[in-house]
């Protein structure tokens, strides 16, 4: 195994594209090193992207923020303006693991590891975030909900990696939130996670919404039907119940050591309602 720490995106691309033996990108390392130690992966090359400016910067862009793929959750949380703009995304990133994990784990890594239960993914999808990918074929910007194709699988092609994630501008009277269920208070992988972002019009009715749910399917799911239950009306109990029902309807979880099918579907609905109310309250107060 080799370890390299390129200084530029192009150097990283040529290292990744130039190796047959399962090259891996290293950002925070909180998934990669666990897999390495457990013997699940045996890469010939590890490419540490933390020396590249673009992957470690948080920059304002078009009213939103471009967050480098390797920026740690701790730094995201400490960024005051970003936390005010997208509190749901930040609280999702803040939920990954412990304080120690937060010191290293990144949203880019969380996305690319493509666990069905990844915490930031439903929140990023709800926010309408996009990723900047860089590879031998050039650059492309992809909505987050298109990145993961299955457990541990992404659309990244040979030599390609995520450089940054763009959190878009947010209008006034909008808010986002993320909730997950875990059996303890910390340190668990999400049994279910739901992210909601919604906007209110001048009339107090919902003008836009995005709802995403994680850990109930091979990938996190954008749930258009749940958004439709909210859009165009007052977000009252009936609308929220309909929204929660739509979330439950798309769940196709498995039984595993972290939860059963029935339990995940039930709690997905419960969390959907709760997180919607938080997003609503945040929207109302901006």
């Amino acid at each position, binding site marked *: 195994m080799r370890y390299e720490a390129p200084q530029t995106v192009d150097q990283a691309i040529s290292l990744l594209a130039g190796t047959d033996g399962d090259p891996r990108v290293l950002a925070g390392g909180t998934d990669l090193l666990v897999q390495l130690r457990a013997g699940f992966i045996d890469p010939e090359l590890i490419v540490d992207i933390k020396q590249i400016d673009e992957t470690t910067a948080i920059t304002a862009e078009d009213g939103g923020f471009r967050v480098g793929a390797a920026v740690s959750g701790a730094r995201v949380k400490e960024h005051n303006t970003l936390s005010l703009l997208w509190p749901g995304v930040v609280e999702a990133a803040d939920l990954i693991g412990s304080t120690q994990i937060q010191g290293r784990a990144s949203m880019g890594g969380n996305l690319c590891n493509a666990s069905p239960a990844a915490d930031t993914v439903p929140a990023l999808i709800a926010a309408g975030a996009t990723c900047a990918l860089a590879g031998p074929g050039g650059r492309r910007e992809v909505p987050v909900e298109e990145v993961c194709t299955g457990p541990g699988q992404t659309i990244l092609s040979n030599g390609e990696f995520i450089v940054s994630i763009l959190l878009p501008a947010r209008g006034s009277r909008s808010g986002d939130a993320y909730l997950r269920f875990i*059996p303890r208070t910390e340190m668990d992988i999400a049994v279910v996670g739901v992210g909601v972002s919604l906007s209110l019009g001048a009339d107090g009715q919902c003008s836009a919404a995005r709802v995403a749910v994680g850990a109930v399917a091979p990938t996190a799911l954008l749930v258009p039907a749940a958004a439709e239950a909210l859009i165009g009306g007052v977000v009252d109990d009936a609308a929220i119940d309909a929204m929660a029902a739509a979330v439950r309807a798309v769940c196709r979880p498995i039984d595993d*050591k972290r939860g059963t099918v029935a339990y995940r579907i039930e709690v997905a609905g419960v969390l959907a309602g709760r997180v919607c109310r938080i997003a609503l309250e945040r929207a109302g107060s901006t």
Partner: protein
Amino acid sequence: MTDSNETPSGNGTGNGKDYKWVGTRAVRPDGVDKVTGRAKFGADLHLPNMLVGKVLRSPHAHAHIRSIDTSAAEALSGVKAVITRDDFSDQPKGAVQPAGEMTINYRDMVRNVMAREKALYEGHAIAAVAAVDARIAAKALSLIKVDFEVLPHVIDPVAAMESGAPIIQEDLITEGMEQSPGAMTNIAKRVEFGHGDVAVGFAEADVVIEREFTTQPVHQAYIEPHACVASMTEDGQGELWLSTQGHYVARGHCATLLGLDVSKLRVQASEIGGGFGGKTVVYLEPLALALSRKACQPVKMAMTREEVFRATGPTSGAHLWVKVGATNDGRITAADAVLKYQAGAFPGSPVAQGAQCAFAPYELNHVRTVGYDILVNRPKVAAYRAPGAPIAEYATESVMDEIAGVIGMDPLAFRLKNAPKQGSQSSYGPKFPVIGCIETLEAARDHDHYQSPLKAGQGRGVATGYWFNIGGQTSATLNLSEDGSVALVLGTVDVGGTRASLSMMAAEELGIDLDKVRPMIGDTSALGYNMLTGGSRVTFAGGIAVVGAAQDLIGTLKDRAAKFWDIPVDDVEWAEGEARATNGYTDNMQPLSLQEIAKDMAKTGGPIVGAHSINAQGAGPSFGTHVVDVDVDRETGRVWVTRYTVVQDAGKAIHPSYVEGQYQGGAVQGIGWALNEEYIYDDKGRLENAGFLDYRVPVCSDVPMIDTVIVEVANPTHPYGVRGVGETPIVPPMAAISNALANALGIRFTDLPMSPPRVLAAIKAANGAATTAS
């Protein structure tokens, strides 16, 4: 040197006397090393020329081992030794010895440390290598070829009892039961305790409740994995450094398995990063010694966390049936229980202790507990803090609570009405000595926690727990230095602060500053035999040994003073750190301090040493009553413990902070056991949650402060009245929490853990039933 089994009288009487050290919160003498990272645990030792050892483990839950080919591994450059079952002689049947709270069968042990005929659980050790570094050792393991014939497996104890179940040990004969000759079984033992006639008792009852319960195996989850460094030399002598609760016991096991004279092996206990019973047995150590013997170099071995979960003993999972009858005015008339505990792949579950403790907090005329020890394809269980009792009392304390509810009686009042006292016939045989069950119940009842109102939606539960505690073989020595300071040599491994309490008793006896006593845990060559640290015995038995050693030292000091003054030794007393002439001799005889006598010891007769060796008897049992408040998110089934109080009888708290620490630590382990901890297996008998991510022990944010009340009903067999306290705290929590949930939700839980999916399912079922009924 004294070695009687009598309790030395000492200075302490445990009846409220004012002490200078005992009862204070002195800083522990080994503390600075622990807060600076200097203290050396099992994996912290480096020796020159040291190799790294690793173990190849079975991927199958049950399989014949047809052959093992180690040739490629042995040929790998950097590999210095490879061992398999061929490197260990078999041990004869019937080689059974008591050790700690479990009996040891060496024929089973040699098979557990390295599989012989069969792999009996996933994770069972098959072979081991020693190499110059970890990478080469890992590669060597991958080159070992094992020909397995996979067999059907069974991991559930009830299924293992059925005819037709896969048989784990073909030659097993059930103790305590009739068995047809030639009939193979997985039932290793049947035990029965009790007195009276439960049928008569149930006939007297106005209310009878009968329930079945299940619990899952849970692991001690000590934060430090097993680790050791072994060094065998060309002359057949060996040194072993290991993380253990008992280095003398480990020495005996390793000497037996390696065919060595016991004294050829010198064993040093490292600091131990948690044991709770799980480090009373050997796993890596015989392997490391065997590898070292082959390689003639030191070998370090340390388990990964995954190995700890896959290959070391948790405590049993169980199936329990409990039936209790009581009159309408709250008198229990009969109690009956059948406990089926899984032992893992070899006999030895703590079902007997569970059966003995099950109804211990009650004075009963008619009681019966029956226990079965059952083999399954899982790691051999190891002791876990009051082994057997928490499992049994989860069931019995739940049923007791339910009966109290049915007859409309306060649960503590119900327990008080049936509480045992000194002289009561215990449910398992002996009459109770001086005990504090009633005192803990009353203190719990009168506590602010129990008196304070609950918030809406919350529930409150109580439960009482019991553990016998033990004494055992213990030796201690006090060596007087020439400046009057004292070295206290102990053989009882310090798992959580006993160097402090034992030093405090020594200082109290001698009447000197605590600062003048330097304690250390000696290696196995330094003292007479010391049984392992377990059974909550160290402050009790260690205290007796230390007080005895101090009295022995004082005897010699008085002799020297008497000689110096030329008066009869009966006219010399020892007080406040000095020898004083009494009986009218005082006028010209100034008191002689410890320093003065020490300074002149060469002239007065030579080195001065106090020693005491005993097999301590008369350990005082400890009762504890817990009060817990819970909150439940009724839409997700998540349970929060919002308030927790432990009330427990310590006899005498030598160092109150460390007594409180035992109460708090055991309670939180119990909270984890109640709400989230369990082993999860796939259909191939393989563990799915072999790590701290999915084996969910409580984290800091999961629990509130744990309030404690130390009740002191002195134990007359100890010079200061000490009772062991370490184990009782884990006995009540699961039932207390289950009872609190019953109070909050009106639902009785009968299966551990009471994790969110189970709680939610029960809530929905109860709501569904209510809807149907209405």
